[in-house]
């Protein structure tokens, strides 16, 4: 393969390296950093909410600020913390797990990160601008419309999420194509590691759910900025339409979040039980089924809007059906552990802790699915407890498990297990203290999104306990951060397979992986490819090609500027009403779009020839590591 186009290796360093990188591993780290940053903001908002509710009728924050806190907490945690951290793992791990040198579209990958980041930035700049979204993370119309929200809060939400949504959508397509087209020889679909499978289905859900959100956000934006009437009842608009569109996106979103966590748990449990994942094919089947059913149940968020008995009954049943594939998964994890020689590393503690916690979230889910009962639970703390059990007890536990499990592979250093155990117990006990009691608060009748409650209603003690738990979770998170800082000072000296029980391809290459991942593309001869070789007494994978120069894509600053363009355009359009900047706003908006589309045209016009990493360099790398 031709050396005709071998260009001089052009490598940037320092900040420019990070701004221009198209390397999936670096982008993964950036996703983790940005997602972690937003996670801390969202966590701070949560702590403030809990401090306000610690005592009856307290005045820690004002009612308006409280509304802003609950809105931004929900939005930030879902769109800017949870999903990006998942994307971080997907970026860092999937190409390694399928034996690929990169993702299908490295450039688009970088673009996805930057659009997400600038969308999130736009959303959070609302705090500086002083007009924060305050209509709840669901932005129900007409509360979010111009009649009831005169300030720009909703606009920040609509435009910020629209921009970060573009990033998510193209990220999803990127991973779908990567998994479809870039697998190493022998890596058939039914040999793919469970995390890759889960990410594949998640990406498919993103692809088919996010366009609905795009339309919903666009409609709300048109209503607010261009005087449209989608959700304006006085001109024939329909407010329930927003709820439908939002939840058609919103319910698959729940599975977009939880499926990768399922994948992580599957990897961790199987590795540290030193056993093949029990019922692999049923696990795949269950994942696909959950993804499919995830689209059929959105109306269970809307039982009380008056859909009628037939609709409610249908959606009740469909919702309960999801418990079946989820149950399959739970039992598979239990049977994987059964008879295994289990090692309780921190990653595995989070994974094992996840299982009963998630079951509890699932059980309350089925309770909520019973439509008549839902009339009682609806909009109470019971619902808050339920979804925090699945999102924090499910997803965040999964994220922590993944962090501890893959940290050595991503950074070449092992997180401190000792400190990790403290993190786990602090977080785990704190979590249950916070949210377990909220079930009972809900059953006692405490409504969600409420700023104050009266003394003497029997809510004091439980709320107090809940706040203590939240503070413990905060301490647990800080412990994790300390652990990260300590670990960063350790030397990078890990072997390829630091857990020694690694099963999948990412454990066959150096930690951290070199720029080109695999010096030679490996041949996959079975499920759990690396374990398969180990069992046959091999110390390395069989390569399918000789060592030779490896073609790499060039770094580019264009993704960064394309996202900046969207960011500027968002600002312009947001303030383009005559009362604000008027035509100037429109001009700024158009200028922003021009930057974005201009960069797009530049990208199309100038071919990226990339560069080659030469044989000598690869051999040198190997000499050092081996």
């Amino acid at each position, binding site marked *: *393969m*031709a050396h*005709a*186009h071998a260009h001089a290796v052009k490598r940037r360093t320092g900040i420019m390296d990070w701004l221009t990188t198209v390397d999936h591993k670096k982008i993964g780290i950036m996703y983790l950093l940005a997602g972690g940053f937003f996670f801390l903001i969202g966590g701070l908002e949560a702590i403030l909410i809990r401090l306000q509710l610690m005592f009856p009728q307290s005045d820690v924050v004002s009612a308006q600020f409280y509304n802003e806190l609950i809105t931004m907490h929900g939005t930030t945690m879902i769109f800017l913390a949870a999903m990006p951290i998942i994307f971080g793992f997907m970026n860092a791990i999937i190409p390694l797990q399928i034996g690929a040198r*990169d993702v*299908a*579209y490295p450039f688009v990958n970088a673009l996805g990160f930057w659009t997400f980041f600038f969308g999130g930035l736009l959303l959070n700049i609302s705090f500086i601008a002083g007009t924060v979204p305050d209509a709840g993370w669901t932005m129900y119309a007409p509360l979010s419309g111009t009649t009831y929200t005169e300030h720009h809060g909703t606009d920040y939400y609509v435009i910020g999420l629209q921009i970060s949504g573009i990033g998510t*959508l193209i990220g999803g*397509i*990127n991973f*779908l*194509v990567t998994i*479809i*087209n*870039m697998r190493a020889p022998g890596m058939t679909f039914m040999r793919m590691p469970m995390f890759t499978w889960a990410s594949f289905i998640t990406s498919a859900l993103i*692809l*088919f*759910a*996010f*366009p*609905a959100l*795009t*339309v*919903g956000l*666009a*409609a709300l934006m*048109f*209503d607010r900025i*261009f*005087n*449209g*009437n*989608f959700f*304006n009842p006085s*001109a*024939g*608009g*329909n407010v329930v*339409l927003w709820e439908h*569109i939002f939840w*058609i996106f919103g319910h698959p979103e729940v599975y977009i979040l939880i499926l990768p966590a399922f994948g992580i748990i599957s990897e961790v449990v199987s590795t540290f039980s030193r056993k093949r994942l029990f019922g692999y094919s049923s696990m795949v089947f269950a994942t696909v089924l959950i993804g499919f059913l995830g689209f059929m149940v959105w109306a269970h968020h809307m039982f009380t809007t008056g859909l009628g008995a037939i609709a409610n009954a249908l959606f009740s049943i469909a919702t309960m059906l999801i418990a079946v594939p989820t149950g399959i998964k739970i039992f598979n994890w239990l049977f994987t552990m059964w008879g295994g020689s289990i090692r309780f590393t921190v990653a595995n503690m989070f994974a094992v802790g996840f299982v009963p916690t998630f079951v509890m979230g699932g059980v309350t889910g089925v309770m909520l699915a019973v439509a008549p009962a839902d009339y009682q639970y609806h909009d109470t703390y019971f619902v808050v407890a339920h979804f925090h059990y699945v999102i924090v007890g499910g997803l965040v536990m999964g994220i922590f498990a993944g962090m501890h499990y893959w940290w050595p592979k991503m950074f070449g250093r092992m997180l401190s297990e000792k400190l990790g155990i403290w993190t786990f117990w602090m977080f785990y006990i704190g979590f249950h203290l916070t949210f377990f009691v909220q079930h009972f608060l809900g059953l006692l009748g405490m409504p969600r999104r409420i700023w104050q409650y009266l003394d003497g209603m029997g809510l004091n003690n439980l709320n107090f306990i809940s706040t203590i738990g939240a503070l413990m979770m905060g301490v647990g998170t800080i412990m994790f951060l300390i652990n990260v800082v300590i670990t960063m000072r350790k030397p990078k000296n890990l072997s390829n397979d630091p857990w020694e029980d690694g099963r999948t391809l990412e454990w066959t290459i150096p930690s951290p992986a070199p720029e080109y991942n695999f010096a030679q593309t490996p041949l996959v001869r079975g499920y759990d490819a690396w374990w398969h070789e180990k069992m046959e007494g091999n110390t390395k994978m069989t390569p399918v090609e000789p060592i030779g120069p490896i*073609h*790499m*894509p060039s770094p580019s600053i264009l993704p960064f500027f394309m996202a900046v363009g969207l960011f500027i355009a968002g600002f312009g359009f947001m303030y383009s009403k005559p009362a604000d900047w008027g035509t100037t706003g429109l001009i700024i908006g158009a200028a922003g779009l021009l930057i974005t*589309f201009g960069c797009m*045209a530049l990208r*199309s*016009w100038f*071919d990226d*020839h*990339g560069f080659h990493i030469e044989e000598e360099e690869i051999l040198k790398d190997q000499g050092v590591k081996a």
Partner: protein
Amino acid sequence: MSSHSHVEGQLPHEPERATLEGRNKITGFWLFLGGETVLFGTLFAAYLTLRGQIMDGPAPNELFDFALVAVATALLLTSSLTSVFSMQAMHRHDVKGLIGWLLVTLVLGAAFLGVEIYEFNHYAHMGHTFSASAFSTSFYTLVGFHGAHVAFGLFWVILLLFQLKKRGLNTTTAPKVYLFSLYWHFIDVVWVFIFTVVYLMGKVG
């Protein structure tokens, strides 16, 4: 990534699939079109929900101009056919034919867009403005999203025509043109539903 792995001078029959990069693009673009299906589906749903809410504005059957819709449909349908011809020319490695048919597609698409702009202008004068009613808002959003797709396609094909002119047909330009043709067919397919659901059903009542 391996856009240059081909033996120079011997373009395969389907140059758009010759490289892994090209195949990745095609797979990804199909997935993107799957997402676009949901996007337009949601817009259709919003339109169908709100189309009865005409308030004081004109009703669909008073408003829609049959002749205009028929002309627009004919233009777009024909442009879809010409983009098929451009693909056939590409598979024959006939760069001149490829550029020619793409130019015809461009002209037809631009004409379609012109008709649509005239049509919107015409309706606005009849009191059917964006803010008139929920019907008008959802109508302009649905048809406007489609129009914006057409406009984007026109800029895209202009850019591609320049690239073909400068570099000719190779394994880098071929996938780009192929994706454009997929995109253009998809736009036509969406239009089939728009003229059926919006215009014809609107005319029926």
